């Protein structure tokens, strides 16, 4: 907490390393609900260790909210490590599947747009296509926007996943990392 940081609402990316146990997702979701925190997107999957999962949250909120989110996540016993990586050098990706209406006239045009975005067509039906696109949120939003012109029937998105760049950062992320020193943390 520091008064120097302006309280501005923005999207933040938070990752958490959690025990892969029944009910963990429920604990996390319940905490967000109870504290009134909003999740924009949430992606969960296995991590490099068999008994741990990694979660990526994109949350909307001011600095105070995000600080509270990370602290309350950390408070859950099954959560091992929480990092707000928004301001770090990260790669973040999301996968989306978009079903678009096409006809003989528009098919070529859609394929051209898809090519521009380095996206793929993974299913072709007489009157529709399924487009697969990987990228950050903005890229997927833009493609979605462009395809609307042709008629978007269905969209399925995975939610963002993110990792720090470089090995140093990876070390920091592992379960063996030292426990966060809140005495200092609280003052920055």
């Amino acid at each position: 907490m520091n008064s120097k940081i302006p309280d501005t609402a923005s999207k933040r990316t938070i990752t958490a390393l959690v025990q892969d146990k029944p009910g963990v997702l429920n604990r996390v979701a319940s905490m967000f609900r109870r504290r009134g925190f909003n999740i924009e997107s949430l992606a969960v999957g296995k991590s490099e260790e068999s008994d741990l999962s990694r979660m990526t949250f994109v949350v909307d909120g001011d600095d105070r909210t995000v600080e509270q989110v990370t602290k309350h996540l950390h408070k859950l016993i099954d959560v091992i490590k929480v990092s707000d990586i928004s301001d770090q050098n990260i790669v973040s990706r999301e996968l989306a599947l978009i079903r678009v209406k096409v006809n003989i006239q528009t098919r070529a045009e859609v394929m051209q747009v898809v090519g521009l975005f380095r996206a793929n067509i993974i299913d072709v039906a007489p009157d529709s296509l399924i487009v697969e696109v990987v990228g950050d949120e903005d890229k997927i939003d833009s493609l979605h926007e462009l395809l609307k012109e042709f008629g978007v029937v269905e969209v399925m998105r995975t939610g963002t996943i993110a990792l720090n760049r470089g090995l140093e950062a990876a070390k920091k992320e592992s379960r063996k990392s030292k426990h966060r020193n809140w005495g200092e943390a609280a003052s920055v």
Partner: protein
Amino acid sequence: MKLNGSQMICESLIREGVDVIFGLPGGAILPLYQTLPEYPKLRHILVRHEQGAAHAADGYARVSGKPGVAWATSGPGATNLVTGIATAQMDSIPIVVIVGQVSRASIGSDAFQETDTTGITLPVTKHNYLVMSASEIPQIIKEAFYIANTGRPGPVLIDIPKDVQTEIAEFKYPSEIDLPGYKPTLEGNGAQIKRAAKLIKESQRPVILAGHGAIFSNAYDEIRELAEKAQIPVITTLLGISSFPEDHVLSVGMPGMHGMAYASLAIEEADLLIALGMRFDDRITGKPSAFSVNSKKIHVDIDPSEIGKNIKVDVPIVGDLKRVLAKLNLEVDPNTHVEWIQHIEELKRDHPSMNIRATEKLLPQYIINQISEATEGKAIVVTGVGQHQMWAAQHYVYTEPRSFVTSGGSGAMGYEVPGAMGAQVADPGRVVWSIAGDGGFQMTMAELATLVENKIPVKFAIINNQCLGMVRQWQEFFYDKDYVATMYTNNPDFVKLAEAFGMLGLRVSDKTQVRSAIEEAISYEGPALIDFMVEEEENVFPMIPAGQTVQDMIEENQPEKVR
């Protein structure tokens, strides 16, 4: 050693130092109950309602500092515990709750007395477990006690299916705990402690604001040392009461909604607030944006999520209060704040919140004052919730730690009977007074039977105003005396009730009989009850209405401030 699940539970509890369990049986926990006679070290107290078991475990923990244990059957047994669990969660009380569950194969089938107990209790526990194999029992119980009573304490629930209680497995009690996601920070950051010492040195008008954490971490001596060394007045929150002796010259009492006017004013005028193990609850801050705006703030708490949650602070220190203060006290220089302390004395004189007005009428404040004198401030006082709770906080002079036991965060009426039971079981050597409301008392008075049955000699002072007093006061102040659903027209005869339960019952309606009745109750061997027929429409002063500031405070001599 091969044991069944129930034996494992008992063996594990004994290894955790448990000596008493509050509970009530039922189908899903019967295997565990039938095993209990094999373990005479475990004293079981049969309550009359599971809420009582949870509150009693909570009262036991508050007085002993050890985790209290309650258990019950599945379904309604479990749901009856929930109020007590939520109360413990709000006040960070270490209790371990064990609940029977339907057999593993039936889980999810809406079987008889099946409830999703871990689901229901998830948001009101520090952690909970569903045990799916007897072999997990030792590890889980070990973890449960560790989690309950370390870091910021709290309730932990363990849900155990009936067939796990009979399943046989190898028993080996673990010596280690491996919880990679749970490592409370105990040592405060050295640089932050130095910064805190510097602020203390520079300050002209410092106050200490001690909360419940001061009691959990047993920081009694350290707070006193800091206060005396640097001559800093000490204010305690409702749950911080008894973390600093109230007969000490530096004691300023409780601030906030029904706090002493001078304590709230001192916080307002301070240039440094040293907040120790407290969480800037809304009952203290009123309107957070207007709370003690001119002070710098040091905040020591073991829970990082409390730092900056309600109030911005200048020097946050995460750690165990006792350890942090031990280091801080080495850094702090002896000091005096003569002018400031004199000023607070003037505030006390100009705002005599503790005065009890002279009248022939039987005032609740006078009764509590008399209990305080009769017990020389050395009793354990347990309360319900409402006006009597605030008067008990104000007018009893607490001189020993862990002496004020009350449901603060949750404000659970009905705490006064089972809470007092747990407190007395934790410390049979001290006199326990339950200052009860006639409303709250009726919520849990079935436990009087438990008290008599188990010879637990709690003394009750029912502050009988024939109404839900605190709500009636709000209606008087904020709803034009529109007393909707707050006045009782048919309270039971509490004296006859006491006699029916087999305890001493006395009635006092005259001021002159107060002291002798108190003495009689104290000298009576078993549990006793005094039905004090008090002035019905007495109000608690001072009052800072919810969400408002010290400027909006209503003191006893300014009833015109009530709109």
